[in-house]
């Protein structure tokens, strides 16, 4: 397996380098994230002035949540995109046949690549808004090394879960030839159910229960609550277990879809 590990590391490194060539886009993105961070911060501050303990958050928690959201937006590729867009394009053109001729699983290959991309986005599009949020709004930092480490694990799991959903969306191109319609729909679900629009802790009653059980809760709500120290002790393991459970389940679904695609559909082109 060491050979495979080296390969996937090489794939991830290459994706990291590829994304790092878009410097201007990175800077423009950081600027946009920061502007939205400021706007959302004032909206949330107004909201929490009306209700100082809404969703069990205080005002500082709420502002911290905003900046974590801006920091993770690109890392988890909330809108879709990332390396799964390459996959959708390769399915459309038929180049995916070449990926399938290789002695490597399609899912592992694209996951490695997406993790490389996410690492780059975390270090740039993630780090910059966090620093700005800390300097300008005094956002909270993790209380303990354990919380910080758990947050790091949680972000990796968030990327994996978001990857699997984007992979499944991209795979619809095997049947529909184009992922774009499904991608827009999936993006809308992701924005709402990840808590990017509004923290899931504010969702009332059964909507809250459902939203907190869906895979999108792994994107932002779970890592943010770990950062904020809302999950402690055994509860922390449950939160990470929730993400891990979805990651494993959805990775299996991705594998199943690839198998189904070679069974049921035409890979485009000769």
């Amino acid at each position: 397996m060491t050979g495979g590990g080296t390969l996937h590391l090489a794939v991830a490194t290459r994706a990291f380098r590829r994304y790092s060539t878009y410097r201007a886009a990175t800077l423009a993105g950081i600027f946009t994230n920061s502007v939205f961070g400021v706007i959302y911060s004032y909206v949330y501050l107004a909201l929490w002035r009306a209700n100082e303990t809404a969703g069990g958050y205080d005002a500082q928690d709420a502002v911290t949540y905003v900046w974590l959201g801006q920091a993770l937006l690109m890392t988890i590729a909330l809108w879709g995109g990332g390396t799964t867009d390459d996959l959708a394009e390769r399915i459309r053109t038929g180049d995916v046949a070449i990926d399938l001729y290789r002695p490597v699983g399609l899912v592992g290959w694209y996951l490695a690549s997406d993790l490389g991309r996410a690492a780059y986005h975390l270090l740039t599009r993630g780090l910059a808004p966090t620093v700005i949020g800390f300097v300008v709004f005094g956002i909270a930092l993790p209380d303990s090394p354990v919380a910080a480490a758990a947050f790091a694990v949680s972000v990796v799991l968030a990327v994996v879960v978001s990857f699997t959903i984007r992979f499944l969306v991209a795979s619809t191109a095997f049947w529909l030839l184009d992922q774009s319609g499904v991608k827009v729909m999936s993006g809308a679900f992701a924005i709402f159910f990840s808590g990017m629009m509004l923290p899931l802790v504010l969702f009332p009653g059964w909507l809250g229960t459902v939203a907190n059980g869906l895979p999108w809760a792994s994107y932002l709500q779970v890592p943010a609550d770990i950062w904020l120290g809302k999950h402690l002790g055994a509860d922390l393991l449950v939160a990470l277990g929730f993400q891990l459970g979805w990651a494993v389940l959805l990775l299996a679904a991705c594998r199943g879809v690839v198998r189904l695609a070679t069974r049921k559909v035409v890979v485009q082109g000769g």
Partner: protein
Amino acid sequence: MAADPSQPLIDVRDLERTFDVRRRVEGRRGRLRESVRAVHDLTFSVDAGEMVGYIGPNGAGKSTTIKMLTGILVPTGGRVSVAGLDPSRDRVPLARRIGVVFGQRSTLWWDLPLRDSFDLLQKMYRIAPARYRENLDRFVDLLDLGAQLDTPVRQLSLGQRMRGDITAALLHDPEVLYLDEPTIGLDVVSKGRLREFLRALNAERGTTLLLTTHDLQDIEALCDRVIVIDHGTSVYDGSLAGLHAEGGSSRTLVVDLVDEAPPIVVPGASVRRVEGPRQWLSFPADASAAPVVAAVAAAYDVADLSIQEPDIEDVIRELYSRGG
């Protein structure tokens, strides 16, 4: 790991692949569901070390067959075995033992220098470092790629890219090499060099080649055996010479007489055309030209003689039209 030498390397039995397609029909709501047979009743086998041309018109089922041979498409009927493996079940282990080259797609990474693509492939196929260096040096030398190793693939010319792709497909010493239109778009010199390289590869390493192409010169230069597929099934499997006989093609003897004469009468040939002192005689492609030439020379005053070989494209066109 080596396949049993008494077994054919590629064994295809009654292979079938159908696709469900939905089609809009005038004057009806919704779509009609139809089953289309891309490949059916296809049986052939290829021994290790053979060079086989796999030809057919567009849409005949060539790439569907290749996809099933490589395991990226599951057959709906029949059996396939390559190197003793079931391709669709053992796709990944099989991928380590085969190479695939497309004329119209690159397996290289667009944004990487050629060398980095090769390094990635070394990791992917887990090629032993010594073997990798040996193969790389050899192919780079034979295919004259030394100056391009550090160039990103997107900046390579088509011919350079093709040679890069061939190298990429061979670094892991595949037992079988599938080539899909490898010479498409190449100039005459590049085509010639590529064919020479493939011939040498087959002679030195015994690599089995399965070649799909529309360029029949590729076939004539490389393949002792041709499989013609049309409408999803094999319509001819045999030698290139036999293909001429099968297609009922004929060779032509062009005779320049010293003087104009009525149509020549000799056994085994018939006159097709007369133009002044020049006459065109046709005789079966599988017959020898010698007795015809001798008979003509004995009975007439001949100024000059030449023989025109049958056009293989005509032969294949004839086969296709028969199948349709």
